[in-house]
C-alpha cells in the first residue's frame, strides 16, 4: 500500500520536500512508517520522538495505516 506523507516547517526543510509517497506492507502502523522514513538519507536526522497526524487527526504509534492515508509529521507547534 502507499501512504502520502506531509512534512512541515523544520521537518520539511530536513527532508528537502513537503511531501513524499511511501510504500509499506499492508497494515503497517505509524511506528513502521517512521522507521521506513528514517531509513532514507536526510530523514535519518528526524528527532527521536515525532508527533504524527493521520488524516488530520493526531495519531498514536500503534495507529494502523491504510492505503491512501495522509500522514503528517508534526513538529512542535508554535501558533498563537
Amino acid at each position, binding site marked *: 500500500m502507499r501512504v502520502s506523507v506531509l512534512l512541515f516547517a523544520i521537518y520539511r526543510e530536513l527532508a528537502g520536500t513537503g511531501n513524499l509517497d511511501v510504500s509499506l506492507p499492508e497494515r503497517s502502523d505509524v511506528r513502521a512508517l517512521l522507521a521506513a522514513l528514517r531509513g532514507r538519507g536526510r530523514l535519518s536526522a528526524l528527532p527521536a520522538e515525532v508527533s504524527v*497526524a493521520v488524516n488530520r*487527526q*493526531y495519531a*498514536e504509534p500503534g495507529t494502523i495505516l491504510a492505503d491512501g492515508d495522509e500522514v*503528517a509529521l508534526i513538529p512542535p*507547534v*508554535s*501558533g498563537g
Partner: protein
Amino acid sequence: MAWSDVGFGEIAPAVVLERVGAGGHGAVNLFLGVVRDSNEGRPVSGMEYEAYEAMAREQLAAIVAEAERALRGGGRVAAVHRLGDLKVGETSVAVAVSTPHRAAAFEAARRVMEEIKVRLPVWKRERYLDGSPEWLGGQAPPVGAGGDRTREDRHARVGPAGPEA
C-alpha cells in the same frame, strides 16, 4: 454558534467581536496575539506563519466548539489564526468569547489560547534584523483524537525504539 477561521487575510478585531454577538451576553473577552518587535533581546522585523492548513482549520473549529460547549451559562466563542508573512504589530491570532458573566468569558478565552498553543498545527519563524530566519521552539502536540486529553498519558510521540502500543 462557534466560529473559526485559519487564513491569510488581516485580522480585524471588530469582525471577531461581531462573531460572538452581544445582545444576550453581558461580558465579552477578546484576546489578540501580536507580532512583537523583539525576541529575547534580538530585534525582529516580522514573523512567518506556516500551517497544515486543512488540519489547522479542523482543529481550531474543534477547539472553539469544545470551548462553547463548556460554557454552562451559555455564550459564544470565535477564533481566527492568520498565516503568511506578518509585520511587527500585526495580529496573528484573535479569540473572542461572550458570556452572561465575566469570569466565564476570561476563562474560556484563556483556555482557547492554551489549546491553540498545544494543538494547532501552526509553526512560526521569526525574521530577525541581524540574521537569518529561525523556526521557534514549540510544544509537542498530544496524541490521539483532537481534544481527547485523557490519552495524554499514553505514548505521546513515536521514537525509533518506541514501546509497543
